[in-house]
C-alpha cells in the first residue's frame, strides 16, 4: 500500500472545452486549471458510452459496456458486478460515493434498486457496503425523488423545492418546457440559495465524510457532481457572473437554417430526423422539442448557464481541496477529474445528447493530479485514453495490481509513456432500443480520425457511417465516409472496429426503466 488518498471528481455531461485549462473561454475554473498545471492533462479522453449509466459503469468496473453489460441507460449494473471501489475497500481503503451514482435506474417507484432505497435508511448500506462503498449520499438533477439530497431539501428547506426545474414532464419524458430569458428547453430561473444547491451540497457532504475519517486512514472518495448536465437552473443569484447576451456562439456554429440542414444532411439519417422533429431516437433528449427551433440566443443562454454551473463546481472542488490540505492529506492525495460524457451545447444546432459520436459528446475533460509527494512532472497527453483506464489507475495509485477483469490500462503519465504502452486508439459504443426504435453505433478514434459505423437497426441498414479528420477543424462538419479518397483510412478503421471485440456479457441484461 502506498498511503495515497484518492479524490475522484466527476461531473455530468461536461464538455472538454468548458474548462479554462482546456481552452474554455467562458467559465473561470482556476481550481481545475491548477490541477491541470500540476498534473497530467489528457487532451483526448473518450468515454466508452456517451450516456450516464454505461459510462459510469465503465468507470467503476474498468470494463467496456459490452462486458459489464450496461448497454444503455435504464439497464442496471448487476449488484455483484466488479468494482474498483470494492478492490480498494478490500485493501483497507475507506470508500465513499457522494453525489450522483446512477449505476441503477432513477425511475423506480417500487424502490427496487439499492441506490434509491438507501436514503430512507441512512448513508450506510445494510450489507456494509454497496459496490465497495461503505458510505453513499446521493443526488441527481433537480429536487425531487428518493435520494438523499432531495429528501434533505424537502425536509429542511421545503420552500426551495419548487424553484428547481422538473427534469421530466408529466409523461416522464425529458421535459421540453422552456424558460429563462429565451425560452430554451431545460432552462429555468431558480431562486434557490446557493448554499442549498446540489453542487454545494455535494461538497459539504464530502467534507463531512472526510472529517469523519481518522488522520491515518486511506480513503477513496468519488465526489460526483450532477451538474453541468441539464436542467440549466443554477441559483439565480449566481447568474450575474455571465451575461448570456455577451456569450459568443460556439466555434463552427452554423447560424443559418440552410447551413445547418446542409451539415446535418451529410450525416446518417437519424441526425436529420431528430433535427426536424420527425423522430427522437433516444430517451435522453426532450421528445417534444424540435432542434430546428433552437435560436442563437437560446444557445447563448444555455452556454452561459452551463458555464455558471461549471464555475460553481470549480469553487466547490476548491473548498474540498482546502479541507484536504487542512487535514494534512494534501501531499498524499491524488485528484482525478473527469466527466461521464459531453453535451452538444449548440454544435450543429443541437442540444443534449444521443447517438451522435462527435467531439461534443466524445471528448471529455480528464486530469490526473498525482499526490505531490510522488514528485511527478506535469505533462500533457495527446494520445487517446479512455475512461475504462480509470479503474486500473486507482489500483495503481493504491499500490494494487489491477485485477485481470479490468480491460483498460493505468493512465499514461506523458506522451512518451503513452506511446511506449500503445495508447493508440479508443473505442465508444452506443446501443438503444426503446419505443420501437433501435440504434447501434460503434466508434473508434485513432490518429486524429474518428470513425463511427452503424450496425443494422430501425433507422440504419448497416452501410451508414461517419468519418471525421481532426485536420478538417475542431467540429465534425466534413463527413468523409463516402469520400473515395479516404477509402483506405475508412477500411483501416473499420478493421480496428472489427478486431475490437471485448467479451460480451450473456445473456443480455434487461432494460428496467428509460433512465
Amino acid at each position, binding site marked *: 500500500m502506498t498511503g495515497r488518498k484518492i479524490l475522484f471528481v466527476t461531473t455530468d455531461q461536461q464538455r472538454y472545452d468548458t474548462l479554462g485549462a482546456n481552452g474554455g473561454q467562458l467559465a473561470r475554473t482556476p481550481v481545475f486549471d491548477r490541477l491541470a498545471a500540476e498534473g497530467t492533462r489528457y487532451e483526448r479522453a473518450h468515454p466508452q458510452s456517451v450516456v450516464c449509466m454505461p459510462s459510469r459503469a465503465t468507470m467503476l468496473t474498468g470494463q467496456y459496456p459490452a462486458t459489464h453489460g450496461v448497454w444503455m441507460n*435504464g439497464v442496471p449494473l448487476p449488484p455483484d458486478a466488479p468494482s474498483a471501489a470494492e478492490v480498494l475497500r478490500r485493501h483497507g481503503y475507506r470508500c465513499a460515493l457522494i453525489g450522483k451514482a446512477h449505476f441503477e*435506474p432513477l*425511475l*423506480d*417507484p*417500487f*424502490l*427496487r434498486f439499492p441506490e434509491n*432505497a438507501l436514503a*430512507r435508511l441512512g448513508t450506510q448500506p445494510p450489507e456494509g457496503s454497496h459496490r465497495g462503498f461503505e458510505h453513499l449520499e446521493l443526488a441527481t438533477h433537480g429536487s425531487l425523488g*428518493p435520494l438523499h439530497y432531495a429528501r434533505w431539501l424537502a425536509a429542511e428547506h421545503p420552500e426551495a423545492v419548487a424553484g428547481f426545474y422538473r427534469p*421530466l414532464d*408529466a*409523461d*416522464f*419524458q425529458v421535459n421540453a418546457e422552456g424558460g429563462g430569458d429565451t425560452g430554451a428547453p431545460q432552462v429555468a430561473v431558480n431562486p434557490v440559495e446557493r448554499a442549498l444547491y446540489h453542487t454545494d451540497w455535494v461538497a459539504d457532504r464530502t467534507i463531512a465524510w472526510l472529517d469523519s475519517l481518522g488522520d491515518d486512514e486511506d480513503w477513496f472518495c468519488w465526489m460526483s457532481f450532477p451538474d453541468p448536465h441539464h436542467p440549466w437552473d443554477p441559483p439565480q443569484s449566481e447568474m450575474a457572473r455571465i451575461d448570456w447576451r455577451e456569450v459568443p456562439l460556439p466555434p463552427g456554429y452554423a447560424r443559418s437554417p440552410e447551413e445547418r440542414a446542409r451539415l446535418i444532411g451529410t450525416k446518417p439519417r437519424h441526425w436529420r430526423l431528430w433535427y426536424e422533429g420527425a423522430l427522437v431516437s433516444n*430517451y435522453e433528449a426532450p421528445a417534444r422539442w424540435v432542434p430546428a427551433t433552437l435560436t442563437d440566443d437560446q444557445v447563448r443562454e444555455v452556454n452561459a448557464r452551463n458555464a455558471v454551473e461549471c464555475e460553481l463546481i470549480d469553487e466547490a472542488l476548491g473548498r474540498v481541496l482546502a479541507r484536504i490540505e487542512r487535514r494534512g492529506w494534501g501531499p498524499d492525495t491524488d485528484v482525478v477529474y473527469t466527466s461521464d460524457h459531453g453535451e452538444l451545447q449548440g454544435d450543429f444546432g443541437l442540444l443534449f445528447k444521443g447517438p451522435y459520436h462527435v467531439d461534443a459528446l466524445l471528448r471529455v475533460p480528464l486530469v490526473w493530479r498525482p499526490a505531490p509527494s510522488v514528485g511527478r512532472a506535469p505533462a500533457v497527453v495527446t494520445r487517446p485514453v479512455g475512461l475504462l483506464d480509470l479503474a486500473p489507475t486507482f489500483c495503481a495509485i493504491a499500490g494494487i495490481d489491477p485485477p485481470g477483469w479490468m480491460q483498460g490500462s493505468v493512465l499514461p503519465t506523458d506522451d512518451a509513456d503513452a506511446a511506449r504502452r500503445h495508447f493508440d486508439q479508443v473505442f465508444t459504443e452506443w446501443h438503444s432500443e*426503446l*419505443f*420501437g426504435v433501435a440504434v447501434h453505433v460503434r466508434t473508434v478514434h485513432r490518429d486524429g480520425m474518428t470513425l463511427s459505423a452503424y450496425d443494422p437497426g430501425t433507422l440504419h441498414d448497416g452501410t451508414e457511417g461517419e468519418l471525421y479528420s481532426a485536420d478538417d477543424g475542431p467540429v465534425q462538419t466534413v463527413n468523409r465516409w463516402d469520400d473515395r479518397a479516404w477509402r483506405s483510412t475508412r477500411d483501416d478503421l473499420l478493421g480496428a472496429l472489427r478486431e475490437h471485440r471485448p467479451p460480451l456479457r450473456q445473456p443480455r441484461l*434487461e*432494460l*428496467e*426503466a*428509460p433512465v
Partner: protein
Amino acid sequence: MLANRGSLRRHVVAEAGADEVWSLVGDPARVDHWFPGIESVRVSGDERQLTLRSGAVVTDTIVTLDPLQRRLQHTMRSPLWRSHLGTIDVVALGPRRCLVVYGTDADPPAMAVVLAGAAGQALGALARQAEELG
C-alpha cells in the same frame, strides 16, 4: 406501440408445474411475496391495497382471475401513470415446466418500461419460489 401507451412483454420459463406457479399468482393476497417493492397487501373484494417500500399506497384491481386459463389481469392506480393493465399468463410446457408471460400496458409509455421492469423482476421471483415449492 401507440403514441400514448407503452406495451411490453416479459417472460420466464420456470422448472415447476403450472399449478405451482398459479398457486402464487392466483392468490391475490400473496402478491407481496413475489412482486418487488411491496411491503404489505390488504385484499378487499376485487381490490388490493399495496403498500410500497416508499410508503405510497397503490390500489390494484383484479380485473381477470381465471384459474382455468391460469390468467390474471390487474390494474394498478397511481398518480405516476394514467392507466395500467398487467396480464400474467401461466402456460404449461410439461408436468414440471411452464412459461410465465407478463404483459404490461401503460400510459405514459415511459412508465410502461418501468412497470415492465418490475414485472420482469417479479417473474424471476415467481419462478424461484415455484421451483422451491416443487
